[in-house]
């Protein structure tokens, strides 16, 4: 826990950083064409937020992110758990998975635009390719790293294959999967934004691209700020969800010595 003094230091850092920036712009030492003043960026954000058309962009980005996230995560968990259990299939598919994972996902964006058009689905597809592998590798690892003693014990206690999946593998992998869920949220946003940035008619990425086209650095920075807040909100939601789902893990300092 942070105490009040630490909080004050954090606040001081923010004031020094942004105050210095603002003063630097005012004093003419920083070129506002490249680094617009924090106040003007804040003003732009407020201007956007109070304009209803902004929410159309926000909604589209949220929709793309959520769809990409959900589809990518589901595919990742299902295929990851499957290959974690099916050793032979995993051995056979391993080089293909590595090869696909080696492709920088951003270069797939034009391919998806070609296949799926400039609308929603090309962005969802890009987000899926980014999210999938993170969840996939974590689910795979989670299933493979189950304590062998627990596996033996459950088998002797009479667990069927389905019992093993439900009572042993999935709960064991859940910690890994949940931690990957938080990492992959950022990637889902990246997928959606890059897709929009490269070609779209709406969304936060579209706003940034538009501002950039007008040499409007304030707009670009305002877009970045909005995105950061966006990701923070989702991350907070997931932290809360994780706390609700994994109740069996020791919280810090709660572990008993053997």
């Amino acid at each position, binding site marked *: 826990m942070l105490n009040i003094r630490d909080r004050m230091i954090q606040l001081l850092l923010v004031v020094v950083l942004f105050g210095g920036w603002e003063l630097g712009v005012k004093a003419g030492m920083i070129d506002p064409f490249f680094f617009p003043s924090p106040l003007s960026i804040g003003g732009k954000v407020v201007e956007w937020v109070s304009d209803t058309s902004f929410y159309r962009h926000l909604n589209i980005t949220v929709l793309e992110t959520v769809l990409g996230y959900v589809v990518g995560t589901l595919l990742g968990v299902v295929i990851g758990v499957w290959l974690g259990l099916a050793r032979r299939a995993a051995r056979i598919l391993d080089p293909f998975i590595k090869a696909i994972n080696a492709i920088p996902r951003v270069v797939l964006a034009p391919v998806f635009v070609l296949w799926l058009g400039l609308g929603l689905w090309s962005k969802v597809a890009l987000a899926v390719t980014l999210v999938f592998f993170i969840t996939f590798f974590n689910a795979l690892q989670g299933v493979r790293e189950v304590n062998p003693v*627990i596996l*033996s014990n459950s*088998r*002797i*206690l*009479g667990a069927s294959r389905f019992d093993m999946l439900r*009572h042993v593998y999935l709960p*064991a992998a859940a910690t890994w999967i949940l931690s990957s869920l938080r990492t992959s949220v950022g990637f889902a946003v990246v997928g959606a934004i890059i897709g929009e940035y490269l070609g779209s008619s709406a969304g936060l990425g579209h706003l940034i691209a538009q501002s950039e086209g007008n040499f409007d650095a304030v707009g670009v920075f305002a877009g970045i700020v909005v995105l950061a807040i966006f990701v923070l909100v989702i991350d907070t939601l997931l932290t809360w969800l994780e706390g609700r789902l994994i109740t069996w893990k*020791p919280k810090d300092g709660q572990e008993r010595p053997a």
Partner: protein
Amino acid sequence: MSAYPRPVAADATTPRPLNSQPKVRIDNVTMSFGAFTAVRDVNLTVADGEFLAIVGPTGCGKSTILNAIAGLLKPTKGSITLAGKPVNGVSHDVGYLFQQDALLPWKTVEQNVELGLQFRGVAPDERARQSRAWLEKVGLKGFEKRYPHQLSGGQKKRVQLAQALIVNPEVILMDEPFSALDIHTRHLMQSELLRLWQENRKSVVLITHDLEEAISLGDRVVVLAAGPASTVVDSFSVDLPRPRNVAEIMMDPQFMDLYRKIWSSLKTEVEKSYAQHP
């Protein structure tokens, strides 16, 4: 004065029928892993109601034998029968007490104890009734909703004991179950185990490197040779009266006598083992 309650068993004085069909029969079993042979030509039987302790130097393949009885490992040669049936695949008729923590950390104490019944399709209220009874038996009443990480080492062992015994197994297998516990907790758990065992006298196979534990718990102590290619070298019958007080039994002259006899056999093997892996 005894620090532990003296258990009272109805059949403490009556001899057990050792002539009936053996519960576990190990016939000429050889266990190899690639070029490495852990145990070779092991012959061993465990009578109904017999408490068999197996001792041997580290790395002599004690656990391998236990895992073969449980069906977790398949013998390279030879056969194993359990209650008259050949072991083929993981056996559900054994209760296995592992050395390590084998509880499912994401389940509560109660859910862990119920697991074997749940896998057998027992109805939830019957499961709850039996698990409550077992938790009371092992002295963990009131801990039902705890998670394993909230328990001490001894408490976790008690949960494991209840988890293994609730399914009423034909044979109880124990792989150095108390070796990770401190000496006082270990003595407490050992007398607890004897108390539970005396209620219905299942056959037990206990693996240990602690000769004191082997003698104070077992009806018979078997000594295994130093590995690799370990085999049975000696078998000693322990005719100390039951119920026994594990914390004080080592002061008994009969105990010391047995200890000396078995140790002289075990010592040779331990020395051999040290010569191989100093």
